[in-house]
């Protein structure tokens, strides 16, 4: 295991809201803040649009972790999308944990359009964390079966 984790490069699929975190990631870019290339962002209108099934599909396609990120409470471009999302995740992540998906592979954050730095630091942090966890082989087993 150690040997594999050593050179193991995790794949992290991120679902970002267009208005805050995607813009925040843009800002990280315009500010030339460096972070690991393991993250792959999918742009959506709002965290309120992000369905639990997206996360499952991400794991199906071999994600070692998923990240959902959007506007801070109160800042939702659509006023309340992130509040509804927050409830959805509160339950769903617990359900995933209960049905055997390590919560450290199911990540959530609020990153505003102004938090380019937070974004780059976040990505660096979770990439390290997931690298330490190693590849999500147990789920791969289910997918392949």
């Amino acid at each position, binding site marked *: 295991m150690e040997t594999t984790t050593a050179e193991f490069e995790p794949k992290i699929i991120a679902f970002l809201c267009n208005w805050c975190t995607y813009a925040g990631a843009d800002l990280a870019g315009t500010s030339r803040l460096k972070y690991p290339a393991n993250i792959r962002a999918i742009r959506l209108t709002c965290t309120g649009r992000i369905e639990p099934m997206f996360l499952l599909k991400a794991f199906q396609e071999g994600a070692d972790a998923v990240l959902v990120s959007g506007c801070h409470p109160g800042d939702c471009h659509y006023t309340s999308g992130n509040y509804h999302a927050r409830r959805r995740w509160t339950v769903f992540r617990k359900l995933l944990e209960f049905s055997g998906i390590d*919560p450290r592979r199911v990540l*959530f954050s609020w990153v505003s359009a102004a938090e380019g730095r937070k974004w780059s630091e976040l990505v660096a942090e979770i990439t390290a964390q997931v690298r330490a966890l190693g590849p999500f082989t147990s789920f791969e087993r289910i997918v392949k079966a």
Partner: protein
Amino acid sequence: MIEQLRQRARELLGEGKVALVIGHGRGSSPQATFPVFITKADAVDRLVFNPFCRNNLAVYLTRKDIMPKGAVGLVARPEEVRSVAVLVQEQQFDADRVVLIGVACAEPGKEGAACEMLKGRTLKELEAEVAERLKGRDPAQDVAARVKELEAMTPEQRLAFWEKEFSRCIRCYACRQACPMCYCERCIVEKNQPQWIPSSARPLGNYFWNVIRAFHLAGRCIGCGACARACPMGIPLDLLNAKVAREVKESFAYEAGFDHEVPPPMASFRTDDEQEFIK
């Protein structure tokens, strides 16, 4: 007690208050009761009630091929009362479409346990009465205990556990069909463009199906256990439901089926909902 039950049914049908009464009927043994549909006042003697009446009859209330245009009388244990509350809350029918004949058993499933009529007539009254009855006592402690056992495991162990359980799933959807809350015209598992959940009875599809099924019951499942009882392969689906119900209770201080007038937790929010898990 059974006479009172039949009397109510007789009146309702006799006075034309309802076109149909759904209740439990006598089977080959007390353990073997089954749902009956009574349309004539003189047939109410087919109704029985005992601790072994476990089918959740509310499941029929959304069956378009069964429901008459008129009102329906429903022999309603606390499980049915709560189910109806959720169904009304979710606009599936107006409260006055269903006349509840409230019944309850002190210890469901226990030979000779006392059964009685509930006092409440309206849904609101019965919600309150049922809430009162259930206060303090958790009907499904064994389930709660098994949930705790699972929680004590590592994620890997849990995944292995469910992998094994789900491997038996034959996708007969008895769990779904037995559940009053699964009233969708087209279940998500039948959506194939794009396909949400693989329909083959294989590990991935089985995992997706059972997880999503449980999630779709968030804030809606009233814990009647019909799904688990219906499962011919003995998969402990009630554990998933119980876990979700508990999270909803702990996070949003909400339990399904006690008040049909409040907004459902998964369609509402508080600005101060918990969010420690969000970085």
